[in-house]
């Protein structure tokens, strides 16, 4: 993907000239700085970081196994390169083409005591496994009165829009899983975040789904600490403090909102930007504290608006912070059509322009 070139064209796409249209990315990647207490760092992009996290896991936990379609040679996004040669074919192996089977098998192996890291090749393909995740994995501890659990299962899947994914390589299904208690759903925004969050997911004693923004695999290059570190789950991060409006998102959209905050600052609107990180269970306190301070909330996500994660957050915040709200809560999300039609992709996105417009509406309410 020619993402470096895309940064050169910051114009709004016009639908008539299809040459320039496809070279504009809808976001600019903002690098994070590593925590100095985590020691020496190395420049890695997101897929190398995931590989590093899995390498550390396989190295420290002798029961850990990594499996999925095509993971043995390195995976279609090269997140599992060299793991098989390092740890052996009995720990890093391919499965046949059967998502329901992969997750069902993963649940079994996790219940029996192995740390299972299952890969679903694209989040769009997770649905044959939906029954296993929702009916088996999520409910295991509950229905056995804590006698059994599959907390050692972690499911990883590439997630979100990528520019040319169309209907079946672009979906963001986090809302479908947010509705299932018993699961944890986590989405990182960058390489540094991804390593800490993935290791936390693997160590967490509950079945976790870790969605990796595929558009960031190559472009999210940061100085990532080499050693093992974790980032707590269910803790949102306030990336930037502000006083006029709270902007909330996760994954790729956080970078869009960062740019929106910059654009809003030029118009003297001070934005507080929060990365939710864990979708389920989500950090109600941090969000509500922020909204109590600013009085306005904008939630943005790529998935369609109806029934999206933003809906749950908006309802909860409206109840908790009702008297502090200066304006109705805005959700700038994908349209209620199927994400994402190939030929209309630039029009579907909750772009920075739409977000800025929503902020202005709230400020002028």
């Amino acid at each position: 993907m020619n993402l470096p070139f895309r940064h050169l064209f910051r114009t709004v796409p016009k639908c008539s000239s299809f040459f320039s249209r496809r070279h504009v990315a809808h976001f600019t990647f903002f690098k994070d700085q590593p925590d100095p207490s985590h020691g020496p760092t190395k420049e890695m992009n997101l897929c190398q970081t995931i590989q590093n996290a899995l390498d550390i896991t396989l190295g420290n936990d002798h029961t850990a196994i990594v499996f999925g379609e095509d993971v043995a040679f390195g995976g279609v996004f090269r997140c599992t390169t060299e793991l098989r040669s390092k740890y052996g074919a009995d720990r890093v192996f391919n499965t046949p083409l059967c998502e329901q089977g992969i997750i069902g098998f993963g649940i079994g192996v996790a219940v029996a005591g192995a740390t299972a890291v299952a890969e679903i090749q694209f989040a769009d393909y997770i649905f044959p496994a939906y029954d296993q995740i929702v009916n088996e994995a999520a409910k295991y501890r509950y229905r056995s009165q804590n006698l059994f659990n599959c907390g050692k299962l972690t499911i990883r899947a590439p997630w979100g829009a990528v520019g040319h994914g169309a209907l079946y390589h672009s979906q963001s299904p986090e809302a479908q899983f947010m509705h299932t208690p018993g699961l944890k759903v986590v989405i990182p925004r960058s390489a540094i975040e991804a390593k800490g969050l993935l290791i936390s997911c693997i160590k967490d004693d509950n079945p976790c789904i870790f969605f990796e923004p595929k558009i960031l695999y190559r472009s999210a290059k940061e100085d990532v600490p080499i050693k093992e570190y974790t980032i707590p789950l269910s803790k949102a991060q306030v990336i930037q403090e502000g006083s006029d409006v709270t902007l909330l998102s996760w994954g790729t959209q956080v970078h869009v909102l960062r740019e929106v905050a910059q654009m809003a600052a030029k118009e003297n609107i001070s934005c507080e930007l929060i990365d939710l990180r864990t979708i389920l269970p989500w950090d109600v306190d941090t969000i509500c504290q922020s909204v109590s301070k600013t009085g306005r909330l904008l939630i943005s996500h790529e998935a369609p608006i109806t029934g999206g994660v933003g809906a749950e957050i908006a309802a909860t915040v409206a109840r908790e912070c009702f008297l502090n709200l200066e304006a109705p809560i805005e959700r700038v999300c994908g349209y209620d059509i199927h994400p994402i039609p190939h030929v209309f992709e630039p029009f579907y996105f909750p772009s920075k322009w739409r977000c800025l417009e929503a902020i202005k509406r709230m400020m002028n309410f």
Partner: protein
Amino acid sequence: MNTYAKLLIRLQPSGRQLLQQQQQHEQIASSLPTVFSSVRKASSGTTLEYDTPKAYKLHMLEKGPSTHVSCNREEGLEYYKKMQVIRRMEASANNMYKSKLIRGFCHLYSGQEAVCVGMKAAMDKNDSLITAYRAHGWTYMMGVSVTGILAELTGKKTGCAEGRGGSMHMYAPNFYGGNGIVGAQVPLGAGVAFAHKYRGESNVCIALYGDGAANQGQVFEAYNMAKLWSLPCIFVCENNGYGMGTSTARASANPNFYTRCEYIPGIWVDGMDVLAVREATRFARDWCTSGKGPMIMEMATYRYFGHSMSDPGTSYRTREEVQDVRKSRDPITSFREKVIEANLATDEEFKNIDNEVKKIIEDAENHAQNDPELHVDELYSHVYSMRPENFKIRGCDNFTFKEISK
């Protein structure tokens, strides 16, 4: 009357030309392997006939399709032309993808042409078909023009789904696509077969899937339903040896996909021989429409390109293997050789067909590159059918609603 005399009558060439042709013919004859001698002996000059003893393997069947296959001149030229159109169309898609005129996903059918051409030749015009994402060849055979296909790939309004579907979502009457999720189309095929039976039609539904998809649970669910309810469904596994980058040996405990169901009979077919494919499809179709229930077919075929445009196709197989298949088993050149050998047509005629095909593709490419795109208001269309009164699609935020017209 011998074949040379027939040649004389048909072509009326000059004396020198005839001599040249004779010499050419002898040269071809001496360099061909002996299997072609069976072509010459059986063919009577108006038909191509030969025996294909190795083209089928049977599972739970005592009798299989006839191993003596034939076609006449018209059919021969028609099959050649269709296969060549598909081959050139896929080559065109390959080039356009590389010049970024086509984006997204593109899975090419080159090498597998004999399967769709052969099967369609045996299908009734009201038979239904459903396949997975390697669908361009099938889309063409089910009636969509090359323009309809190439324009769909480039996202233009003249595409068969008006540019909304792209490579994996092409449709036509009786052709249910074009499906992205592996294996998901197989139970659908069983359902369509049920509809045929319910309506009392003597038609079948052909549900195609690949060697990778053969390991999906829902395929076995479809087998069970089809057998239980005796549905006129032909399950066809287009086995091209690789599920993306994984060979069948590494993915399947039982790589004999035609034997995968112990209660549905199966036939393995040499998928590179268009006439064998046609004969086997006729047999399967007769089986299903006579109320004997479903059948499974495995087409042993090969794809020259990688899984999709992002796969070079050489990291899991050698270049030599691909070239080897091109040289020895290519469905188009081997069929052409057989037709020439049987004196049904000459090199010259084939060259003319090739030129016609070239023109068709060029014209389609022109449309694909220059036709207008779909209007952006179509972003909201066809989410639901018949919209209720005052129904609006909610847009990106609480205040944007779009009134939709369809």
